[in-house]
């Protein structure tokens, strides 16, 4: 298998692993972009294409297909924030986020959805974002779908996904097929550990190589520490080089100067960078309204092998339960089936000792359905708040309140009913006091009475959004519809932190589309060329 990253490096890409820096230095460019995930990658591509000198700053390492050996023991420490064990402040939610070149797109599961029209409508009503609508954005989504090979997935779903389909069909619940951003996918099922065959069209394979081919500079293991500003403009970004372990600062510092700065460090990293820098925030909005699509999990033992580790992970979904109530009513949820691998499943599964071992022995027969709760629309669903810990690094405080638990109970019921309808022998909510239920009648009664509380009911997330929300005026948001910071003239925010609510859909394509639009507007401004023809 050819490794385009190693080939590019051999051909002379400018990549500097900050762990190897001998001494501190100051470097200049037109634009400095912090973070190389969905938002950072697209921005680097578009700005470099308009002739601007771009520097990308990434705190994780540069890894590529030759390194991706599909082992959890290597992938989590190398490619994820906090070895895939990032937690909210009270430890009740486990957050998966990428921390490598390509960010979360290097390890994501490729599900591609456009921003739902009703979400744009809500943003228009509540945040005055009249420029953003499904129609106005559709060509931007189309551009990115084309570029990243977002297509219908023609291969039959794996048995894990088929359980969702079979159960839903029996109950008359409509199911849809998920588009994926892959090209020549081998259907291996290890997307979460980095794609070993370079099929996934993540930022690692698309926008970042494109920018590097145009002479952009990529720094890795370099942590953006603080933006320096005066009089409404940023002059420099101070960075800390990390040691080869990627965790501890080495003591070397780097200062990056530029005309414009882009925060694309993800929806925990960007608010944290701005908070550390003490940027103006008179309405105290920065870091607030951070959303997670809190995920509730239901595990079933099927009569036959499911082998949920094999085959494209998420290929079918149901939005039926998103549309049962008004968008700002009781929280709706989207149903999907995640991939299962031994570490991911064993650590998420409740209990220990003989009971845990017994369920693990059924590993190959396990089906898991998950519900992504649509947070941020109900007036009491205010999400979480990014704060800074003792060491200046971010901590997300996300209290799980009644509106979440009420939806979680409906979700656990819906998932168990679907799993039994699909023929499950037993179902258990992933919850510390839940037993294995052997029939739908038993599950229905049991789940109705289950105490739903933080740390008893497992909650996870791979979708972090918000914290630097967009709005029409600074009283309601941190940035405008173009991602421009309201108080600092040469600062843009280009990542999932811009969303004023969650989406009710997996976020990658929403980020690609919005950032493609905003980076194009920014490129026009900075390069003095006319703005792009697409709106």
């Amino acid at each position: 298998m050819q490794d385009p990253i190693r080939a590019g490096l051999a051909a002379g890409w400018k990549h500097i692993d900050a762990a190897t820096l001998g001494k501190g230095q100051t470097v200049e460019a037109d634009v400095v972009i912090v973070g190389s995930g969905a938002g950072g990658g697209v921005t680097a591509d578009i700005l470099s294409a308009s002739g601007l000198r771009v520097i990308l700053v990434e705190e994780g390492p540069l890894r590529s297909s030759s390194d991706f050996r599909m082992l959890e023991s290597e992938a989590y420490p190398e490619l994820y924030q906090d070895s895939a064990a990032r937690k909210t402040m009270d430890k009740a939610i486990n957050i998966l986020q990428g921390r490598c070149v390509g960010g979360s797109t290097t390890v994501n599961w490729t599900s591609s959805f456009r921003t739902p029209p009703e979400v744009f409508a809500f943003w228009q009503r509540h945040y005055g974002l009249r420029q953003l609508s499904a129609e106005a954005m559709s060509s931007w989504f189309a551009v990115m779908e084309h570029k990243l090979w977002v297509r219908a997935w023609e291969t039959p779903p794996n048995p894990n996904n088929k359980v969702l389909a079979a159960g839903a069909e029996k109950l008359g619940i409509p199911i849809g097929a998920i588009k994926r951003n892959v090209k020549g996918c081998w259907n291996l099922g290890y997307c979460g550990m980095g794609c070993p065959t370079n099929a996934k069209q993540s930022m690692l394979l698309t926008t970042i190589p494109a920018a590097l081919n145009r002479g952009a500079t990529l720094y890795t293991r370099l942590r953006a520490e603080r933006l320096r500003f005066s009089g409404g403009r940023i002059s420099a970004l101070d960075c800390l080089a990390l040691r080869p372990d990627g965790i501890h600062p080495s003591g070397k510092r780097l200062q990056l100067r530029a005309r414009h700065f882009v925060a694309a460090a993800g929806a925990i990293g960007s608010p944290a960078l701005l908070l550390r820098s003490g940027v103006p925030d008179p309405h105290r909005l920065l870091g607030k309204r951070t959303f997670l699509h809190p995920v509730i999990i239901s595990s079933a033992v099927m009569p036959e092998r499911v082998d949920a580790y094999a085959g494209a992970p998420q290929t079918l979904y149901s939005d039926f339960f998103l549309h049962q109530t008004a968008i700002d009513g009781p929280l709706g949820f989207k149903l999907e089936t995640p991939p299962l691998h031994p570490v991911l499943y064993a650590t998420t599964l409740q209990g220990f000792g003989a009971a845990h071992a017994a369920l693990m022995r059924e590993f190959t027969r396990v089906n898991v359905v998950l519900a992504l709760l649509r947070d941020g629309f109900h007036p009491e669903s205010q999400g979480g708040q990014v704060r800074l810990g003792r060491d200046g690094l971010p901590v997300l405080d996300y209290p799980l309140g009644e509106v979440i638990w009420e939806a979680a109970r409906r979700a656990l019921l819906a998932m168990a009913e679907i799993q039994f309808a699909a023929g499950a022998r037993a179902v258990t909510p992933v919850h510390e006091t839940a037993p294995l239920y052997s029939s739908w009648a038993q599950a229905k009664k049991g789940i109705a009475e289950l105490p739903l509380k933080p740390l008893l009911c497992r909650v996870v997330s791979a979708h972090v959004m918000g914290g630097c929300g967009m709005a029409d005026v600074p009283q309601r948001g941190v940035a405008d519809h173009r991602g421009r910071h309201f108080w600092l003239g040469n600062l843009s925010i280009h990542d999932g932190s811009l969303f004023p609510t969650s989406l009710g859909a997996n976020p990658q394509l929403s980020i690609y589309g919005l950032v493609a639009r905003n980076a194009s507007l920014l490129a026009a401004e900075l390069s003095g060329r006319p703005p792009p023809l697409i709106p």
Partner: protein
Amino acid sequence: MIVSRRQFIRTGVAGSLLLAFSGWLNAAGERRLSSDERAMLAAIAGALLDGALPPAGDERSRLVALTVDGIARTIAGLSVASQREVGELFGLLVLAPGRMVLAGVGKPWREASVDDVSAFLESWRTSRLALLQGAYAALHDLTFGAWYARPDTWEAIAYPGPPRGYF
């Protein structure tokens, strides 16, 4: 274990005092696991993995030791803040008062039985104190993560491992 509300509150206060103290002990930063920590983790892994581990014997001890090595490796890959928190928890558990007051384990870790340790884990798992519940979750995830990260544990769950071949 039936504990009155009063006792819970007292334990909570004792817990935070101990945490502050052990945190001070561990403030030095990265370090290898001490032999006391290894003994404590071995006892905990023995209880969590009971059912996956072979019955008592050399093979069991060998696999437990490998798991403790795996836990140490995992910790080294955590963020500085998480390493500090884990260090505080371990510092607390290796001290006799922490082990006795908070975990309710009377015997030193090396002598504690699977039942003793399971009872403590069970009480933390459903504790009303978020501190203890969160600590249980950390021990759970570290141990099961270290166990199932090793290919020699996969046969028991019929997982064939990642596809091999030419990539």
